[in-house]
């Protein structure tokens, strides 16, 4: 699977306005709704689902990244948003460190396999120190889109 298959190009926020976890989740879900990938009427419901999932166990995996997500029947097609924060966000991460890069993933309720494939793609790259560094250094949404495009074209490039 490629980033292009699920990352919404219009839901990339190079500098998140919010600084706390729940507000960041709401900001990213709102960006997906604004881009038209989920109905605006379901925006609050879906943000609440992601926050509820986050409360069960943090998706702050360490190394400055978090991957909040939810599977929900209000989602018709899997979609992800990406947000960067230069200040850092407290995600109650495993390593207790702030999060600088957030990939938020919304999946339909009945698409477990595609959800796993998207996670595989996300972590294959986030596991690479170089990729994490490049992502954090992006100043504009366009730079993030370029980075994802490079990773899609040559997945070994970042390794």
């Amino acid at each position, binding site marked *: 699977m490629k980033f292009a298959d699920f990352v919404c190009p219009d839901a990339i926020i190079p500098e998140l306005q919010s600084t706390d976890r729940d507000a960041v989740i709401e900001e990213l879900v709102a960006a997906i709704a604004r881009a038209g990938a989920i109905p605006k009427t379901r925006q609050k419901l879906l943000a609440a689902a992601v926050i509820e999932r986050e409360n069960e166990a943090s998706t702050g995996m360490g190394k400055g990244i978090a991957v909040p997500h939810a599977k929900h029947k209000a989602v018709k097609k899997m979609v992800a948003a990406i947000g960067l924060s230069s200040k850092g966000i407290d995600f109650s991460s495993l390593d207790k460190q702030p999060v600088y890069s957030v990939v938020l993933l919304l999946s339909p309720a009945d698409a477990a396999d595609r959800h796993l494939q998207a*996670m*595989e793609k996300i972590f294959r790259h986030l*596991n690479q120190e170089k990729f994490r560094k490049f992502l954090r250094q992006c100043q504009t949404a366009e730079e993030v889109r370029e980075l994802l495009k490079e990773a899609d074209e040559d997945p070994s490039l970042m390794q």
Partner: protein
Amino acid sequence: MNVGRNPSIGVLRLQAEKDSLKQPVCQADLQIKNADGLHMRPAMQFVDVANRFDCDITVSNEQNRITVDGKSIMEMSMLAATCGTTLKVTATGPDAAEAIEALRELVEERMFNEPPPKKKK
């Protein structure tokens, strides 16, 4: 703990014990049986169990030819192990057999405390 229940584990354990100079190696094929597959919460449970043991633990998904560290949640998230996938789990170290048995119990018996797929109508 009765590792003899699974014949393949018992045999490997005997082989390992014969050669006391080498670290014991224990291996098992574990099938993912819960409907949602090895998503993040199950992967965290796996990593939690794996970290209770001193041995090194690697996990391979031969479908996408990837081998990862069974004690790292970031790496385990790369397995994309859907329901029905068989993972090859290899433990190397003094408590290898106990680790494999604990992981087998988590993956195949308890199925990460998640439901199996619904039967097709």
